[in-house]
């Protein structure tokens, strides 16, 4: 009755089950399972790729920062060098100007001295000439009286004074 092994049912069951198994295996399970595996693999790949990209981005960022820092440092160095060069050049220019001014002053002083010496020498010469002239006139007027001599001297002196001025 209830527990009754029926040959026909076992036969049909086995035949149809195996048929279904083979049909589904070929046309359903294989494509479905393959697609599922493929999708899982795709997701896994995408995730690992994203992770890799993230790591690369991070590496790139660090590299960028490094670059920025070194650039900044280089700029500092360059600026400092430029400042140094400028300072040095200014200092040099100043020194040079001072030296030139000093030289100029020194030459002026020498010139003045020379002029002065020349003037003195000329004055001495003129004094000597005047003296000679006076002496000459005195000598010329020697034969005159004293008064004449006196007048002569005065006259010479006056002339000398005039000429001098």
């Amino acid at each position: 009755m209830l527990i009754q092994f029926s040959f026909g049912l076992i036969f049909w069951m086995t035949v149809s089950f195996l048929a279904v198994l083979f049909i589904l295996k070929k046309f359903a399970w294989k494509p479905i399972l393959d697609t599922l595996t493929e999708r899982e693999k795709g997701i896994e790949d995408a995730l690992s790729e994203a992770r890799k990209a993230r790591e690369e981005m991070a590496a790139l960022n660090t590299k960028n920062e490094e670059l920025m820092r070194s650039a900044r440092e280089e700029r500092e160095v360059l600026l400092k060098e430029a400042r140094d060069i400028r300072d040095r050049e200014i200092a040099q220019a100043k020194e040079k100007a001072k030296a030139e001014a000093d030289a100029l002053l020194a030459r002026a002083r020498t010139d003045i001295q020379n002029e002065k010496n020349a003037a003195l020498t000329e004055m001495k010469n003129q004094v000597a000439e005047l003296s000679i002239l006076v002496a000459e006139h005195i000598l010329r007027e020697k034969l005159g009286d004293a008064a004449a001599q006196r007048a002569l001297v005065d006259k010479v002196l006056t002339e000398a004074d005039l000429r001098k001025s």
Partner: protein
Amino acid sequence: MKALIRATFLVFSVLFAGVAMAQHEGHDHATDSAHATTSSDAQLAAEDVNEVHATTHGDEGHAKFNPGEMIMGHVTDEHGWHLWGHTSLPLPIIIYNTERGLSVFSSAHFDHGHKTYGGYMLHEGKVVATTAADGTDVHAATIDEALTAATWDVSITKNVLGMLVSIVLMLVIFMSASTHYRTNGVGAPKGVARFVEPIILFVRDDVAKANIGPHYARFMPFLLTVFFFILINNLMGLIPIFPFGANVSGSISVTFALAAITFILTLIHGNRHYWGHILAMPGVPKPVLLILTPVEILGVFLRPSILMIRLFANITAGHIIVLSFFALIFIFGEINAGLGWGVSIFSLLFTVFMTMLELLVAFIQAFVFTFLSAMYLGSAIEEPHHH
């Protein structure tokens, strides 16, 4: 969270296995009482079994309602599909007799088991050979035992047809899912694919991978087919309208064939390690092996037997309980029509509850059968552990 759900699911399945055992015992009693009722009725009414069988189907006006007959009629196989009242769908009878050759004819010729046809007749639902002429009343015909022994009945019975309907449904579902995957590729699943994909993944990850290990892939088609075959037949068995409602997965012939396939697969794939553990368990003293080896060999046959009986008992028991609640309506209705109507409310509530439970059992039993098959296959191909 996922692990928790899995654990709950397992606990439930174990619990229901226990309930099922209880149900099984219960239905044994039911069967006994059914037998008792049948025989006492037969004696009292002095009518043949087939007469009672024919009249008890939903038509309690003519004969006394026999719940045992009604329930058995619904859970066992038939050469014809009872639709309503006295209307049955005749099914093809296919018989091969080693002496008479092949005979194919409609079961309508048997006239609900009253008449002989083509040298055959129905006796207690089975086709037997007779030498009586066509159209003889079965009471007048005698069974030809020798010819009956040479008869192989491969008729399309109610269960075979029910199974074929389920198979067509399976093919439709999975072919369309497969087409979807073939056309949509790895895109998000839609329609029927979205429905079956989680179940396929469940079978793959929690049944096959968990029990078989890295070489699970070659058993996947078998496990998936078994799982969905049982599941769909379980669910179809719950729908009481033609062409569903045949008790396919609650038929011991069907569960026998399924378990036999698992059994044969374990035998084919069993490796040296597996047979070594069965025939001579390593590290066990020789005298103990005298006891252990027969037990292990017995175990090889017991495992598929357990698979067979568990599925059969669970599904049949569920059907018997649901049908018993319906039978209650008619039993009380015979005493008093009002009482019948009163009981029908409770019967319906219980039937709804039982059907809900059966839905759960349908999934659990499909899962348990597949899970245990995977476990047996896993143990058969397991490689020795290197410590």
